[in-house]
């Protein structure tokens, strides 16, 4: 229960941060990605602000094996860089550039009742399901 309440709180603050920062607005995100047009550097400031806080948090987390609520730290140890990571990132970036939505802002805009965000989120979930189906088929093929 504590775990879910902390999750709800984190999700809410994350969403409010996206709204305050202007990142829930795809047009503003595209203004950052359009480096050849009139460039809006705001997104870099959002990332900068978040990372400064995050650096402190991860420095604390690194020295702990359990969280402040007593849960095991579940930080993925992966360090390898492979084709899946790069091609996945490229595909995500292409989709991000088409509409100006990444997953968080898409969900916030959905919560704001935007019909277009509903279509984006539904397509994104469909994409995630396609990934699961392909992965399962591949896992079966290699057995």
């Amino acid at each position: 229960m504590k775990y879910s309440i902390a999750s709800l709180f984190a999700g809410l603050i994350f969403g409010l941060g996206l709204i305050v920062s202007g990142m829930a607005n795809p047009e503003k995100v595209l203004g950052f990605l359009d480096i050849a047009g009139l460039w809006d550097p705001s997104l870099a400031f959002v990332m900068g602000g978040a990372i400064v806080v995050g650096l402190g948090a991860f420095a604390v987390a690194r020295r702990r094996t359990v969280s402040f609520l007593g849960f095991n730290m579940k930080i993925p140890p992966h360090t390898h860089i492979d084709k899946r990571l790069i091609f996945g990132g490229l595909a995500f970036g292409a989709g991000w550039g088409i509409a100006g939505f990444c997953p968080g802002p898409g969900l916030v805009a959905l919560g704001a009742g935007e019909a277009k965000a509903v279509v984006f989120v539904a397509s994104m979930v469909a994409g995630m399901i396609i990934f699961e189906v392909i992965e399962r088929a591949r896992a079966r093929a290699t057995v």
Partner: protein
Amino acid sequence: MIDIAWGSFTPWSALFGGILIGLAAASFLLLNGRIAGISGILGGLLVPARGDIAWRIAFLIGLIGAPTVWMLGAELPAIEINAGYPALIAAGLLVGVGTRYGSGCTSGHGVCGLSRLSLRSLAATLSFMAAGFVTVYIIRHVLGV
């Protein structure tokens, strides 16, 4: 030569919103011991495991509920979605497949991964940023949409 859009550049609210996002990721990490990666939190619901569902839904309720909470105190800023429906479908599919293959999005790799100085997340962030810049360049300046 880069022309800054001074009319739409909002450094203070961007910085403040970024700090809030950082605090959200920090509280999730320090309270629950997890990375606040939104694509991973959502994607994990598609292969549900016992005891691994409620907190994911709680996080998403918080995120999706943020505009409603915001509107208790203030008017919601404009959300301008200029992409048409076919483009939104293509974008959604690419974001869905891409974030799962790449094991993360702007939050997990971009914010959390860079905060923990992960080279893997840096590689992912450079990949999606590069693809984003190129895609917008092609759409706006080559195709002229």
